[in-house]
Each structure stands twice: as structure tokens, then as C-alpha cells.
């Protein structure tokens, strides 16, 4: 019954793959960017009763326009709750968050993530953003889904800085450290989908994206990667999933070159809002969401 499409970009495939990790009725902690696209796809297709929680204090927003940041006014639009960060962070530490989507610049075989620095912490080659909420979600969410680019250098034996805990050093280590959440359940990259072995807690390849060469994928991982005996191709996006993303983000701000288009171009920005209002209203109405 699904109408698969071949008209998709790699970021769109990743967003759809993450969307499929979200189940109907769940509460998910979502960062803005590609995770937001994933959440929107889930909400408008297979998981209408799923709600998102946003880091600066919003629950269940249902906006008709693109969210710009985790503290953005759009997160308030038609939300169930808007208020303090303490509410959403406290709820997630207490176990109310089913799934959280996080990212990083480096990852190791246990799913430990680095989003702080490349090189020595005190004399970094590249300074990055820092934890933000990623460490908090990696610590306490029931499960996390990791979404990141796989560039050949960032699946490493040891991360330069452990910002967000995965399964730390292996089985039992999260509990020993006092972490309450379940840790990473899946890693979605530009090459494939990975999961974690129940016994060893090590990452293995579960799915490979269409058109990706397995040998190249293995070469992009520093450790000896385990591969599922049932390795399959990643499911393609459906026409509807792609339509949802392009309706909400017609200039591909998150999944393409939209930011370059908009830099300094106020009229294009205003037009983006004008043009997406009616299609978003129609989409919401067709799903019985307004």
C-alpha cells in the first residue's frame, strides 16, 4: 500500500528513517533541524498521536510553519504547554521521554558521542558547540536515536571527548555510572542504519542505504564492524513522507541549500511563509489536526 518514491535526497532518506523509529503515542524530545523533519514526518504519517517536547520549554507544538530553533517562538504555536525548561528537562530525567534524537561529530562502537571538540580539549583543533541537551537526553531518555553524517573519519575507536554517553565501555556500565535512561537504540547515518547487540552492546550494521557500497561503508568505520546476517536495504521514503517534508520546508532550509538561499534575502524569507501557509493548513485539515 505504500507508494515508494525514488525522488528523494540523502537528508530526506535519513529523516524518514529516523521518523520510522518513532512510534504512535510516544513522547519524543526533538532538537531542531533534521530531527524536526523526522518528527514532522512521523506526526503526519504513521504516528499522529506522537508529541514532541522542545528543549526551551514546549510540549506538543503543532505549528503551521517551520521551527527555527529550540527556543523559537514557533515552538509555542498551538502547543499543549509552554513554560520553563525545568519542566521538560525534569520530565525527561524522571523517565517521561520515550525517545530522543541526538547527534554528534564523532561516535564509537558503544554509541558514545562527541559534540565538544576535535583534538585535545584544552588545545582543540576544532572547537564545537558543546553538549547542550544532548548529554541530558543521552543520560535519561528511555532510548535515543542518533542521527549523523558518516564522513569516513568520524566512526572512531575512541572519541576525542565523551560528551553524551552511549553504552560507555560495554554491558552494565550505564547502570554502574548511575545513568537512568536506556541509551542508544539506533544510529542513522548517510550510509546505513546501525543497532546495538543486546549482549555486547556493540554497534552492528542492520541496514544499508540504496546505492551505498558495503566495502566503502566498512572502510568508513575504524573498528572491525559487525554486520547483521540479515542485512537489508533501507526502506525507501514514500511519496507522502517526502510531500510532508517539502510542504513544511519548501526551500529545504534543513534538508538542502535553503540557508544559502535565505542569507540576506528578506523577501524570499517572507515569501516562504506566505507560500507555505495554505498548504500546511490543508495538510493539517486532511489529517484532522485542525
Amino acid at each position, binding site marked *: 500500500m505504500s507508494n515508494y518514491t525514488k525522488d528523494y535526497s540523502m537528508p530526506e532518506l535519513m529523516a524518514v528513517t529516523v521518523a520510522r523509529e518513532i512510534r504512535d503515542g510516544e513522547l519524543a524530545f526533538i532538537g*531542531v*533541524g533534521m530531527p524536526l523533519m523526522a518528527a514532522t514526518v512521523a506526526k503526519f504519517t504513521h504516528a499522529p498521536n506522537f508529541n514532541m517536547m*522542545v*528543549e*526551551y*520549554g514546549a510540549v506538543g507544538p503543532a*505549528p*503551521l510553519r517551520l521551527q*527555527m*530553533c*529550540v*527556543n*523559537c*517562538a*514557533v*515552538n*509555542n*504555536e*498551538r502547543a499543549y504547554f*509552554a*513554560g*520553563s*525548561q*525545568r519542566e521538560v*528537562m525534569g520530565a525527561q*530525567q524522571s523517565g517521561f521521554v520515550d525517545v530522543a534524537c541526538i547527534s554528534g561529530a564523532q561516535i564509537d562502537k558503544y554509541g558514545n558521542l562527541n559534540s*565538544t571538540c576535535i583534538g585535545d*580539549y584544552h588545545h*582543540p583543533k*576544532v*572547537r564545537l*558547540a*558543546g*553538549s*547542550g*541537551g*544532548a*548529554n*541530558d537526553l543521552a*543520560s*535519561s531518555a528511555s532510548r535515543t536515536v542518533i542521527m549523523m553524517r558518516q564522513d569516513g573519519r568520524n566512526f572512531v575507536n575512541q572519541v576525542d*571527548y*565523551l*560528551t*553524551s*554517553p552511549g553504552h560507555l565501555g560495554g554491558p552494565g*556500565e*550505564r547502570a554502574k*555510572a*548511575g*545513568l537512568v535512561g536506556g541509551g542508544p537504540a539506533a544510529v542513522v547515518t548517510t550510509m546505513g542504519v546501525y543497532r546495538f547487540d543486546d549482549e555486547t552492546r556493540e554497534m552492528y550494521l542492520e541496514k544499508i542505504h540504496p546505492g551505498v557500497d558495503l566495502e566503502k561503508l566498512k572502510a568508513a568505520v575504524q573498528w572491525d564492524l559487525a554486520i547483521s546476517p540479515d542485512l537489508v536495504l533501507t526502506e525507501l521514503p514514500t511519496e507522502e513522507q517526502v510531500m510532508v517534508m517539502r510542504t513544511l520546508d519548501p526551500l529545504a*532550509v534543513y534538508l538542502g541549500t535553503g*540557508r544559502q538561499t*535565505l*542569507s*540576506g534575502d*528578506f523577501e524570499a*524569507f517572507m515569501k516562504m*511563509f506566505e507560500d507555505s*501557509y495554505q498548504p500546511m493548513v490543508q495538510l493539517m485539515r486532511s489529517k484532522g489536526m485542525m
Partner: protein
Amino acid sequence: MRFQPIPIQEGIAKPPAYKIMTAKEAITKFVQEDCYLGMTVSAAPASLIWEMVRQRDRIKTLDLVITSQIGMSSVLIGSGLVRKLEMGYNWGGIEGEDKVFRRAVEKGIPRPLEVEEYSNYGAAMRWLAASMNLDSIGTKSQLGSDIVKYNPKIKVIDDPYTGSPVSMVPASRPDVAIIHAARADEIGNVQCLGLYGNTDTLARAAKHVIVSVEEIITSAEIRRMPNLTTIPYYYVDAIVHSPFGAHWRESTYYYHHDLPYGLDVYRQFATQEGYEAWADKYVHGTKDWNEYCQLVGYDRLNRLRLSENKYQKFGEVR
């Protein structure tokens, strides 16, 4: 009859007195050299940040404490005012990579920046602790990570009651907090509309609190919906009336984020010379927030307001 302020003895609590002043007056009065400054992210107190940059020759050095900042902290860091940054996250958000932050940490330009790092919740809990007059507080975040390894101020201890590990963070009590909010009355009761992050705890943690607002309203209007009051008057020292006071960022129900402007600013911030050229024109080249808004263009700002109100207006579901 207009509210008549009365002289009240100095104490910890700020009096219910007339507190409206200009950004220049408020920054001059409360922000001194070596100030330990706290700043919110939602919404961004841009008009107050700009005024500190204008006064950078007098202020010289700030130690900045934030939870997560998206964009605006780079205006302060690029000015050379910031010696130390206590943070959970500092980046450009949708505007992208924060080159100002990177230059300061990697190369010490325009001055070396010491970073003291927490998770976002860990950073936020520090203001919560101070708001309750506690010296520290615990969280189950940060455990097992290098955040604990590289920040000796975080102490992982066994909970004295259950024995389970907990990471303790020290209270943060800024000398001054700068905050942007929706509206306030003239004695300093502040109402946030929409999500407000850690605005409430920062105001309660700081010794002095400066709040810029979109609108000044009457105390009668405050009393009409007192549950919207995020910060009661006794925490607040100064109210600054700054319409569009979070530009290029957004203010819920008032105006949308000016993304094309923010992206263009971040493009300029790619070099220190680019930062200085932007600051010369938009910060040092304007004497106050009104002049800055004129330079950006009130027509543009009003279109951002209309765009926001097309999607949401306070009290109305669109």
C-alpha cells in the same frame, strides 16, 4: 491615579518603586568591570547586549554564564569583553557554526576565552540552586561523561540516602542578569508569554536584574492574569522598554526570528574584521536601540511582527 513610588530601605528585596530606565542608564548603573553576568537565551536581550558592547571601554571584562546560547553570545565574545564562559552549549543554531566562539577558544582572538562546561540541564540547575539559596544541587545528567572529567567543579558523589551516583553542580549567582521578556509594569513585575527557558531561575539567582521588555503595561493589567507573572517585582532592579528588543531573534507573539539577517551576520562573523565592521555599523554606529531599529528598518521589523501574528497572537488560536 498613577502609582506613586515610596522610598524603601535598601535590602535584598527590590522595592515596589518606579524602575523604568534606558538601556544606557541600566547598564551604566549595574554592569561594572569584572562583572559576573548571566544571560537568557529565550528571548535574547539584544538591546542590552548592544549597550554593553557600546560601553566596552568602560566595562573591559565580563565573565559570562549561560545555559545554551544561540547566536547572541557571539556579539559579546567578538567585542573582546568576555574572559570566561560558563556554559552548556554555545553555537549559532540555525545560523550555523559560531566562528566567533571558535576563534576565541582555538586562537585567543580577540582575547583568550576560558570555558567551564556543563550539560544544558547541569548549567540550568546552577541557577535553580541559587534561586533557593542552596550552594549546590544534584542531577543525574553528566554521569560517566568527559564533562565531569574536564570540569573539576562538578562532583560525582553517592547520594547520602540511597547511595546512587549523582553529579553535583555549584550554584551560580551572577552579579547581574540581563533578560528579555514580553511585558512588565513600571515597578518590575515581569510577564513572559510563551516558552521562557530558564528566565525565571536566572532572575532569582542574580544579585541585580535588568529586564528589557516589548511592552510596558499597567499594574492593573498584571493583576488581571497574575499567573503569567514569571518574575515578581522584588527580584527586579531595572525595566528597559525595548520594542523589537530581541532582534535578530524572535519574541513570542510579537515578531518572528529575522533569519536572513542572522545568516548574513553570521557570514560576516566568519572573520574578526567582519565582526568589527558589523559592530561598527550596527552597534557603535547607533546611539541606542531605537537608532538600531531605524537602521534595520521599522518597515522590516513590522513585517516580522505581522508574520508572527498571522500564525499566533496572544490568546488566539489561529
